[in-house]
């Protein structure tokens, strides 16, 4: 591993230590909020490894998350499958779903691809309501799903660990040559082919990793909430939250979506007393606009340039 990677790994370690000590000083209420930030970070990273890297913009991530959530919910709740089996099965099912996602990416990109993925989400939404409602629970969904651990502190550690491990692995992954090859696809897919690389294989890889991460996140999410309902998952605001977290944090960086997820979750929480209803979502647009005008590459890049300024100032 090169020197910069080792140095930055120190940053990850520090982040890990701080987050592990946090339950000693903050309230369980705050921990509950952070748990949501962890899930959001997982979903935003899943989006980032696909869309932030390769430029194939997904508007359909709730489709992947929904497959995972419903698979593990149905298996464990309806058929009594133990969760240590239903969760891996859900991740596998999500990867199959990711392959469906991948089919249009063989032919189309840009806005068209984004719209097709949105359609995937809508189709699954309608299906959960009408196809076999006895199994899916229809519009009401399923509740009383087994949880993995109980209590704010254990859930905080569980979700943090999942988010941290996924984040670290993805971050290491994009620092390899495959990360460069995937971002080359975003810049000029034809030129990647002329460089002798099989873009289909590379894209499929990105889709599979993205789906696996969405699958893990989606399954854990359902087992944390103890319930699943179509309106909670296949919802445009849920999709926007994921996109905005990745974008304001800094797409294509993996670290960015984590920062974005914490930032957005905390922001919404602070605004709760002022704006209790849905108008909070209105703020997404404003926050995204402000960040875009000021720093199109997101908070991650703001922090990076601040760090450079500081180290220049020191020397």
């Amino acid at each position, binding site marked *: 591993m090169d020197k910069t990677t080792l140095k930055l790994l120190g940053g990850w370690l520090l982040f890990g230590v701080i987050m592990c000590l946090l339950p000693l000083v903050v309230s369980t209420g705050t921990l509950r909020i952070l748990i949501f930030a962890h899930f959001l970070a997982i979903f935003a990273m899943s989006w980032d490894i696909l869309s932030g890297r390769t430029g194939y913009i997904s508007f359909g991530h709730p489709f992947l998350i929904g497959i995972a959530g419903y698979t593990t919910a149905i298996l464990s709740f309806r058929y009594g499958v133990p969760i240590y089996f239903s969760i891996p099965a859900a991740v596998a099912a999500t990867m199959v779903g990711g392959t469906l996602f991948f089919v249009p990416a063989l032919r189309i990109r840009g806005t068209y691809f984004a719209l097709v993925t949105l359609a995937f989400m809508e189709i699954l939404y309608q299906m959960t309501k009408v196809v076999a409602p006895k199994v899916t629970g229809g519009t009401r969904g399923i509740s009383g799903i087994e949880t993995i651990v109980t209590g704010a502190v254990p859930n905080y550690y569980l979700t943090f660990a999942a988010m941290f491990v996924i984040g670290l692995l993805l971050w290491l*992954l994009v620092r*390899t*040559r*495959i990360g*460069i*090859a995937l*971002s*080359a696809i975003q*810049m*000029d897919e*034809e*030129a*990647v*082919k*002329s*460089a*002798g*690389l*099989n*873009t289909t*294989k*590379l894209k499929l*890889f990105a889709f599979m990793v993205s789906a696996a991460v969405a699958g893990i996140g989606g399954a854990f999410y359902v087992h944390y909430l103890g319930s699943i309902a179509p309106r909670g998952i296949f919802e445009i605001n849920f999709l926007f939250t994921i996109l905005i977290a990745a974008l304001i944090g800094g797409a294509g960086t993996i670290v960015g979506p984590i920062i974005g997820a914490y930032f957005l979750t905390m922001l919404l929480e602070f605004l709760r007393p002022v704006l209790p209803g849905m108008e909070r979502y209105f703020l997404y647009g404003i926050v995204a606009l402000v960040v875009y005008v000021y720093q199109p590459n997101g908070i991650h890049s703001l922090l990076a340039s601040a760090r450079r300024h500081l180290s220049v100032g020191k020397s």
Partner: protein
Amino acid sequence: MAEPLLEVRDLHKSFGGLHALRGLTFNIAAGETLGLIGPNGAGKTTVFNLIMNELKPTAGEIRFEGKNIARLATHARVKRGIARTYQVPKPFGEMSVAENIRVCMATDDLWKLISGRPDEAAERDIGQSVGFTDQQIGVQPSELSMGDLRRLEMARNIAVRPKLLLLDEVFAGLTLGEIAQISELLVEKKQKEGLTYIIVSHDLRALAPLVDRVLVLSFGALIAEGSFEEVINDEGVREAYLGQ
């Protein structure tokens, strides 16, 4: 005679009603340098697009090392040993020169891409071989001049280790000094590695010392073929160029 490296048989390409190539046939032997000239819109770039499978031919056959390559995708043709430069350089815009070279050196084996480390020394060697300084290797294409961008096109193509290199207007927009440098590099690569070239160029003076043979295209048809002197003294060729 040895088998030709590349054989093009009766190649046609239509874009709707426009017949851009009308039955082009030619061979190129290993180690040979072929010039491909013709007025604007004659179909030169289209020939490259078809050889690389960036466009599908309407009819005709392309054989490389004796095998029909019709079924091979672009990346597979590159792996067999054919590479091209673009008339308008197409670098990866948000990557350094070294990273541009890195993508072109990458293998198709995903696991090796993840586990292996980039060969930075080889990247630097390739960069230097086309005339980049160590400082330039770290900069992004937006900071490069046209001459440097053409150099980068060359570097990326050398990085894929081709046998046959298709060069589309590599001299356009360059100073005489830069033209001399690129020409020298082409000659050197050919001597060292036995590379075969097809060179498209409007700059006939730059082309003349490099080519063994020249093909002249006009409106998608081959109108002359022979040594450089033969074709530029050809009546039909003069007419095609003046007539445009």
